[in-house]
């Protein structure tokens, strides 16, 4: 038995119908990533079939692209920072050795235009510093910066700076001892950020290339903004 013209005609009709349906559905988004409250540790582990590291890496990838997928753009200021930092803390429990989450918090989400939200990031960075004996000083420095320049809470910034100066973090550079004085200076936000970022880069000559690139990008962005304002 061969293929009859009727078969071919029917195939052509349903194929055309599918193209039309597909065309009609082009505008429908396949998925829209929404920032949901974080699940419990157990549920997260189950969703990754017991592989916590997979949940962690998938979570970092999703947090990196949140608000810019599914054909929509959700501004950073519209994100729920309680949920966002809840995700940061949850992900840290799966891989406390990775620097990806504090990097996202310190060099991306911390710069939210909705400045009161930076309080959530400060709390997260300080909590992360407690479980990170080697790099904890960096997250404290960043939390201190956000406290003074994003939140405008000089008392909190000084408290963090004094705590930072009083600690003997083995990996911390000598200049963290001067942080209380640095906080009391009437320095502009971008100038202070540039000094801190450059200081972090100089104090870690063995920094991985991708980490260094993130800091260079941040410095370039701040420099461009500063020169743009001067003009």
């Amino acid at each position: 038995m061969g293929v009859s013209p009727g078969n071919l005609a029917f195939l052509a009709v349903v194929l055309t119908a599918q193209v039309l349906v597909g065309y009609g559905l082009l505008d429908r988004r396949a998925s829209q990533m929404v920032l949901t409250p974080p699940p419990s540790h157990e549920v997260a582990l189950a969703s990754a079939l017991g592989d916590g590291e997979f949940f962690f890496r998938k979570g970092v990838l999703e947090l990196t692209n949140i608000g810019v997928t599914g054909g929509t753009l959700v501004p950073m200021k519209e994100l729920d920072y309680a949920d966002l930092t809840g995700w940061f803390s949850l992900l840290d429990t799966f891989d406390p050795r990775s620097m990806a989450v504090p990097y996202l918090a310190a060099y991306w989400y911390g710069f939210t235009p909705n400045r009161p939200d930076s309080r959530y990031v400060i709390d997260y960075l300080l909590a992360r510093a407690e479980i990170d004996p080697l790099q904890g000083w960096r997250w404290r420095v960043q939390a201190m910066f956000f406290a003074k320049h994003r939140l405008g809470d000089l008392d909190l910034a000084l408290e963090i700076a004094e705590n930072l100066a009083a600690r003997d973090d083995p990996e911390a550079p000598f200049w963290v001892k001067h942080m209380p004085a640095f906080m009391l200076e009437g320095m502009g936000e971008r100038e202070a950020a540039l000094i801190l970022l450059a200081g972090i880069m100089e104090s870690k000559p063995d920094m991985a290339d991708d980490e260094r690139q993130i800091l260079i990008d941040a410095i370039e962005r701040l420099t461009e903004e500063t020169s743009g304002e001067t003009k």
Partner: protein
Amino acid sequence: MFVTFRYIVLTAVRDRLVLGLSLALLGAVLVAAFLGGATVMEGRDTALTFAGFSTRLILIAGLILFVCFHIQRSFENREIDLMLSRPVSRTQFVLITWAGFSGVAVFLTLVAVIVLPIAGMPPPGALALWAASLLMEALVMVAAALFFSLSLRSAVASVMASFGFYLVARMEGFMLGIVQSDWSATAANALGDVVSQAIYIVGLVMPRLDLFGQTWWLSYGDSEGGALVPLLAQTGVYLPLLLAAAVFDFRRRRF
């Protein structure tokens, strides 16, 4: 007996299982490498994690499907009757059949180990640890799929049972976490004592496959030490249990 072993391996080649799964493993690793490249930082770790996770799922799913449909076809074609007409006991038949499927699993694990470094080079020893763990997981699942397919006959039923078994075994940590957590009293209230006890019993009977094939080994190596010991113990106990159950059930079957 070697004939049966060779027959299963040849079937895997003839059905293009080896070629198909090898290509699927390669594709998964390439996609993982792409995703790793799309991350802002720690791209190698991300790629290795995605590659490790996806290769494990592909390998296990492929082996389950192959075992279940191969056994069903052997029943339908009366190949099993033919094999049992030769001087081979039913126990020997089950063991050599498992060995044949395991040979396929060993080969596909080797393929996974060869293609995985495309996503990134793991620390020394990490790849060997992950591969050993993956192989043990595959051997356990081959035995489980063999048990279900010999017992249930229907390929669809045995595939569903095998996947269900795998899911529950990989979610053991989650279920035990619920009944052992700080809020276990609340969980007990919500689930009821009977369900909580049932979860404990399931935890005692099911293998802890959630401890196998942890992809963080690929990023950091066995930094905590002794990762292989519980896996060897679990495999050493559960593999004979599944094979014994398969033999027990197969010996009771009438042809």
